[in-house]
């Protein structure tokens, strides 16, 4: 089941609709448009596929067919802390799959999925270009080199603790309560 669009996502998609009007209706614009939408809301919800189909005057299944062909496009929202585990050759040789498994086990999701609270998502990526640090995982923007299964737990825990702390702060700072 795909999650419902949030109000924020809906308003972004409304903006996208306006932006689309500026883009020509050539077929060769299909992939750039999909990339543009994904850069705005991080994935391609069904509504967006329909928007693009309307704009280029092709069927939604045609758009979907192209989008699913390419690894870049995703169809469910990534977590606030997207985890990317490198499955490049050097990382594979040094046990990248073990790292991926540990994330999957710890977060109780499979690669390509997002946790129900939308906090984490896990995906595999090809060489991120720091093979000398293999195995590598990226969380958010930060690259973590020389990963070990035991480091996985620490990383996840750190994010969760940080979040709890923020929530407590927020409650404290909310006046009148």
């Amino acid at each position, binding site marked *: 089941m795909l999650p419902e669009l949030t109000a924020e996502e809906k308003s972004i998609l409304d903006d996208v609709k306006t932006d689309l009007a500026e883009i020509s209706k050539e077929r060769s614009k299909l992939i750039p448009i999909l990339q543009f939408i994904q850069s705005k809301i991080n994935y391609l919800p069904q509504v967006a596929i329909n928007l693009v189909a309307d704009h280029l005057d092709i069927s939604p299944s045609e758009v979907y067919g192209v989008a699913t*062909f390419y690894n870049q496009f995703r169809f469910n929202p990534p977590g606030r802390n997207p985890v990317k585990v490198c499955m490049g050759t050097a990382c594979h040789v040094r046990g990248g799959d073990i790292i991926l498994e540990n994330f999957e086990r*710890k977060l109780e999701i499979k690669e390509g999925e997002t946790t129900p609270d939308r906090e984490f998502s896990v995906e595999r990526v090809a*060489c991120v270009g*720091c*093979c*000398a640090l293999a195995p590598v995982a990226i969380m958010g923007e930060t690259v973590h080199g020389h990963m070990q299964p035991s480091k996985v737990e620490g990383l996840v825990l750190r994010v969760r603790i940080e979040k709890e702390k923020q929530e407590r702060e927020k409650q404290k700072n909310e006046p009148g309560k």
Partner: protein
Amino acid sequence: MNPANKVHTNSQYNALRQKAEKKRQAFLNEPVPKIHIGMATCGIAAGALDTKAAFEDALARHSVNARIHTVGCIGHCYAEPYVIIDHPDSGFPPIFYHEVTPGKAGMLTNLFLKEGDPRFEHVLGATVQNEMIPWIMDFPRFNLEKRVVMEKCGRIDPEDIDEYIAEDGYSTLADILQRSPEEIIKEIKDSGLRGRGGAGFSTGRKWELCANTSQNDKLLICNADEGDPGAYMDRTILESNPHQVLEGMIICAYAVGADKAIVYVRAEYPLAVKIITQAIQQAKELGLLGHHILGSSFDLDIDVFQGSGAFVCGEETALIRSIEGFRGMARHRPPYPVERGLWGKPTVINNVKTLATVVPVLSNGSAWYREIGTENSPGTAIFSVVGNVVHPGLVEIPMGVTLRTLIFDICGGIPGKKKFKAVQIGGPSGGCLPEELLDTPIDFDSLTETGAMMGSGGMVVMDEDTCTVDISRYFLDFTQKESCGKCTFCRIGTFHLLSILERITKGEGRDGDIEQLKQLSEDIKNGSLCGLGKTAPNPVLTSLRYFIDDYEAHIKEKRCPAMMCRPLIAYYIDLDKCARGCDACVGCCPVEAVFNTSNRKKGIDQILCVKCGECLVACPPEYDAVIKVSPPELAPILERPPEPVKKA
């Protein structure tokens, strides 16, 4: 097309050059230390941003006046993040420091920049010859390389076009605009330059074919799709010296008569996309792109198209389909793209490295280029050497150097006293070569003869702990997912190859599997349209050819000799060695499979164990009690004692 207006191109170029040189002189003459930091993706991944911030912070804190100069990548990944500190007042030559963490950055600012002590223990070498500090060119990792394409990578700031121009950049363009396109194509043909995208087709010939078509509307595409999951030289070049690629593109477009060009770069390379886009903008502003380039009658526009991450889109016909807005499926050739390419127009497609090579070839002449490398493969090759080597990274070597020299002399050999087992060359299309073939010279033809190929330039070195069956399975898993699905043999054949390999690595191999792997591989090669299918079985075929023992041990004895295939191994704890009361392995186990035996030693619950090997690493070396075995039956079974009842 007319050879362009002579006077103009030179005078316009000279004006740009003078301005750029003045700027550089001002930078060099400023009497403060310079800190050069490598900031390509690899450097950033290793923490270069933090290092830079730490320098900025420390400079302010210690009130030291110095300039931070961000550069691209020099390819020495083992040393990232690296910095070069040029501090003339200290009396020392410019010094190359490796693995500069934020802590080291603070320390170097204080002790070296402020107090003049270069901290010898952190020095990798000096960048010029001198009496005090070993010169980096005395190290084989530096002096056995031959930098033709990557000469400026890691020396200049890729985000500043003036730095490229001050280093002679775009002067070749200014020159060739005064020569006829035919002359340029002849020079490239004479140089013997072969495409660096994998297949090694003659670049001059390709250009000639395109130039000779009667159609007027022609296009040029720079292929920076780089889909090999373990290679990153094209990205490094784009991020470290984008203008050399652009200069090569403009020259190519002029030679073949194209007025529109596209850089096809994968979206997974955001920094490369940003840098090349910015470079195009800068070149346009200086009149090096756009209308009447350098005052000549030649026009060219370059756009960036972001590839969306499909390996097959590196293949030229699939790449074209994807720009046109369709699924990237390969088509039959001929017609080749030089006849019918993007939107049906004649299109030259060249790799990033090929286009970047064009510049030094034309500035130094074809005879100079032919002196480098071998008769049939002139020039240099760039490899990303990764895996089990001491000094991984990008290496540019003259063609003809042997694999042994590259792996053992330049990259420092295998770490940790392990033995060399195999080297995988050319990524998913390449092959696994054994020790006996280490004396093979690196060039297009010799590598193809061994069953591997130059391919993308990815090179993975593997030590004795690597299983060649598993590596084949890894690459097949990749190509199987990346097959575009057009050809039945590629789509279904790779699936079957993969499932057989999966079975073997799980210990479910059967008699006849080897024969079937061979047969299927041949069928896939013969039955596929594009290079993906034609080369996908290479990893399997080469490992079958050179490492048949590995396959047989898996199939017949259900054993993985390298102890890498997890279903075929087990870990156990040697009770004679285990120290009573030590809990190192308990804390690190991600699945709580380690338990206490009745006498407070440890045991492993084989059912829970996921075989991550963490306990083996955690067990203190003085005990060394965790033992890995294959087949798994060799591990003695230890019953988990019932949980002790907690006292209230």
